[in-house]
């Protein structure tokens, strides 16, 4: 299918167009995963700290 070939060739500029798009998607994906993971981890840590606190308070009571 010549259409697909032309699409990937990007008028001869494939060497520039595809890496540009690739790096944008990679960086945005990495930033997304790092941020969401950081947030989820902080939720877990906070929940654990609060549980320990409640546990200790009920032990002392």
């Amino acid at each position, binding site marked *: 299918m010549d259409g697909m070939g032309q699409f990937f060739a990007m*008028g001869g500029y494939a060497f520039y167009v595809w*890496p540009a798009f690739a790096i*944008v998607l990679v960086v945005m994906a990495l*930033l997304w995963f790092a941020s969401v993971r950081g947030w989820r981890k902080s939720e877990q840590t906070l929940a654990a700290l609060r549980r320990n*606190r409640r546990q200790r308070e009920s032990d002392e009571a």
Partner: protein
Amino acid sequence: MHYFANPARFTRLAGIIQPWAGALAAILLVVGLYLALVVVPADYQQGDTVRIMFVHVPSAWMAMFCYSFLAVASAIALIWKHPLADLAAKASAPIGAGFTFLALVTGSIWGKPMWGTWWVWDARLTSVLILFFLYLGYMALWQSIEDGQKAAKAAAVLALVGAINVPIIKFSVDWWNTLHQPASVLRMDGPAIHPSMLWPLLIMALAFKAYFVALLMARMRMELNLRRIRALRLAERTS
């Protein structure tokens, strides 16, 4: 603004906004990428390299928008002492730095075939590189100062000092002779981009904006949690 100063209320709101903004970003991104890569015709002058514009320009816009957001939040933190303002500034910095990096890299990749070089030290490119260093310096400042409140203040001052760079970036192509061409969208005579290319550009810009909002909500919730964790640990040590 003060309505959202209550952390619990903000957290609830952020929890609702984040998934919706994320979904919107994903949808707009898919649509925008399809338009940019498949539908939009080649440019009369730049051929298929023009497709790089659809990621380069939105990245550059976000790079400047994030810094403006960061600077305004810093001013609000310094002047109104809003409890969430410095968190908002801190949370937005990595996102802005990422977009600035992308603007520089995609711009360089686009410049090589069209201009004939990967880089020049003209006013536009140099000032955007400075913006990137400002982001890094801002984030480093937060990391390097132990005391949270002192770090917030120092970072806010740096943010405001660096804010002068934003209008410099915008007007660099008008004030000095540059290799980078003048503005194509936000200019006195209206956009110099054909509608068939302008609309996909605006869709990509909106996609990047929604992505920013979603990530900002996640990062701000994370910063709030980290603040609470620090407070709890401090209380335990002293009790």
